[in-house]
């Protein structure tokens, strides 16, 4: 056993997992506060990255393009809340889920309608060359991504725990009727949450776009986030991170050490096998809240 190689594989897997977590966090934000599993998160990632890179290619300065895209994502979030979610208040979760499924079509179509179907290069100015650490190679870019994810998690944790807005989010998540009775304005809360999810989508879009190029398939990164959510819990930001790390680590190790014996290409479905097992054993995921219902 080459332990140096094993360590390299494990570290690479964990860093890959962080990338999955970045997208999963967007899901958690929406679910945690409104109970909606937003399947349009991947489309939002695509829309954000495509808007940013198209503006930047038109000559708009990096930070200005970032700011304009952020405003666009906030407006998108507010529109989604006003036009799609508000009319569906108190509808069953599956109805809301289907609404976001439809929304993903609309956003993907709009992104391509506005910005075209070309593939774009996105250079964030961070070299993606390996840092040699003994025999282990660690990607500088992946380390940067891990740092960004850490900052986002810290910021969201502070937001949810220590700010009035965050506490209002949690109250709305806990019981919407009680929140309304205490004077909280749910539409405003949801609009803010969707705007924050838009910001997370922008960050995820830029980081994924820098890895893969900005193209339609960015919207498919949600595929990697679903098992992360099932594993970590739909309503836990910490769960999104831990779930992502477990999925990234497991699929990478499995592909490298098991894949060659079974024909390879197993990293796509092995994550879903793990998620299915968790769904059977612990339906709420590692960190998800267990449902308690008075009957």
């Amino acid at each position, binding site marked *: 056993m080459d332990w140096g190689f094993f360590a390299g594989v494990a570290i690479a897997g964990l860093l890959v997992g962080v990338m999955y977590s970045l997208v999963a966090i967007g899901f958690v934000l929406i679910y945690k506060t409104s109970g909606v599993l937003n399947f349009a998160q991947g489309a939002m990632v695509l829309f954000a990255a495509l808007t940013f890179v198209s503006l930047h290619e038109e000559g708009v300065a990096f930070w200005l393009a970032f700011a304009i895209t952020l405003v666009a994502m906030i407006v998108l979030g507010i529109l989604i809340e006003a036009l799609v979610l508000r009319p569906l208040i108190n509808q069953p979760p599956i109805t809301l889920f289907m609404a976001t499924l439809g929304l993903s079509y609309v956003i993907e179509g709009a992104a391509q309608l506005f910005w075209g179907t070309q593939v774009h290069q996105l250079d964030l100015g961070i070299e993606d060359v390996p840092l040699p650490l003994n025999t282990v*190679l660690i990607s500088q870019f992946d380390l940067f991504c891990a740092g960004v994810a850490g900052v986002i998690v810290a910021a969201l944790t502070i937001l949810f725990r220590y700010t009035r807005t965050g506490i209002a989010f949690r109250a709305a998540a806990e019981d919407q009727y009680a929140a309304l009775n205490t004077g909280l304005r749910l539409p405003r809360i949801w609009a803010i949450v969707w705007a924050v999810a838009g910001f997370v989508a922008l960050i995820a879009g830029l980081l994924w776009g820098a890895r893969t190029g900005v*193209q339609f398939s960015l919207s498919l990164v949600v595929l990697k986030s679903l098992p992360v959510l099932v594993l970590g819990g739909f309503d836990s930001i910490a769960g999104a991170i831990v779930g992502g790390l477990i999925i990234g680590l497991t699929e990478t190790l499995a592909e490298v050490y098991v894949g060659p014996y079974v024909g390879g290409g197993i990293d796509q479905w092995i994550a879903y096998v793990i998620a299915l097992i968790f769904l059977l054993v612990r339906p709420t995921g590692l960190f998800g809240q267990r449902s308690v219902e008075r009957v």
Partner: protein
Amino acid sequence: MRFPHRLAAAALAVGLTGFAPLTAHAQNAPATATTPATQPEQYFPLQSYRVGPYAAGGTGFFGGFIDYMTLINSRDGGVNGVKLTWDECETQYVVEKGVECYERMKTHQPPPSAWNPLSVGIAYAMIPGVTADKVPLITIDHGRTDSTDGAVFPYVFPLLMNPYSESSAIVNFIGTRVGGDDKLAGKSIVVLYHGSPYGRETIPIYQLLAKKYGFTLQQIEVPDPGAEQEAQWLQIRRIHPDYVVLRGWGVMNPVALKTAQKTGFPADHIIGNVWSNSEEDASPAGHAAVGYIALTTQATGTQYPVIQQIENTVYKAGKGDMADHSRIGSVYYNLGVVNGILNVEAIRIAQAKFGNHTLTGDQVRWGFEHLDLDPGRVAALGASGLFHSINVTCSDHEGHGLVTFQQWDGTKWNRISDWIAPDWDLLRPIIEASANKYAAQNNITPRDCSKEAAN
């Protein structure tokens, strides 16, 4: 908060289906380039894809194809007075939609001349239908390898290059890089392939080539879409091969190049196949793609007379199909132009036998089966250097196309090899065996091509 278990299961189910349905978008309404009813016309149904994950390739290919047909109409008044017309039907590269387009357009009058879906999946699904309809199916640079055997597949034409020829040409090219085919023995090659029927099609041929030349071979699958390849490239790093053959598609290509850089593998030792050879494959990878080499059947650039005629005749008249003019001369665009040349010349050849009027699909098929464009004829068409030549026969629906190799310099492709021939003699018995197996399974009696040649 109530945890919706059913919702989690539903989400998981959607994920496990591969998200394919979510690539759907509003379909483009067919856009017909019509002519007055009194003029004879030759009709092409185009199953294009201008939205969705592979739209970059679709817009380039179909843009080039349409621009060439527009050139023929504008410059020559059609093919010997017969106008070329077409409809587009959006497939989004989805097989079901491609088949739906086929069903919708196959009854068009005048009848379809040929089908050009530029999709392995759609082409596979259409083979029984087009054979019954007696209309040729063109799968330029792709498709079923065994459809090269026209005795069994009379209506399918993998023009210029089939996947086996491609594999052979890549190994021949690597041979030139290491100092000759005899130096391949003892070398190590990894084939990184897309996890799809397209990607897996060449697994046996690389095994055969490895046995013949004595190189060590590892073939590693990347699951679709290929947006994450850490595990695969870590394996490659452990194998430490001399060359990696990239048999990718879509997002898999730039991600492969970026991950190769991340794991310290040099780009100039990665050889891309024909679906890993476009600007859209290399450009998004930035610096990681500099030095990357890929195979192609048609050169890039706008210096060829036919491309310049399109720019001067079609675009100056405001009739061009490409919204982004900078893509004229790109890999997919030029492939579309070459595809247009082959379709038009097949009609011209068929007209010489059947007359200068609207031809049936079966008559156009005859034209494809006698499509012989030597370098002199290619030059006369203004395409010298754009592609080499083609000579299609009843038994060889590929047409002995030659390939060349290009290297990415960070902004554009540059040709780095002469035109290279695959090892057809090695491949032919395998193709025939596979075709005959297909014939037996489908109760097909192969044609006697020696008799066909006399017709």
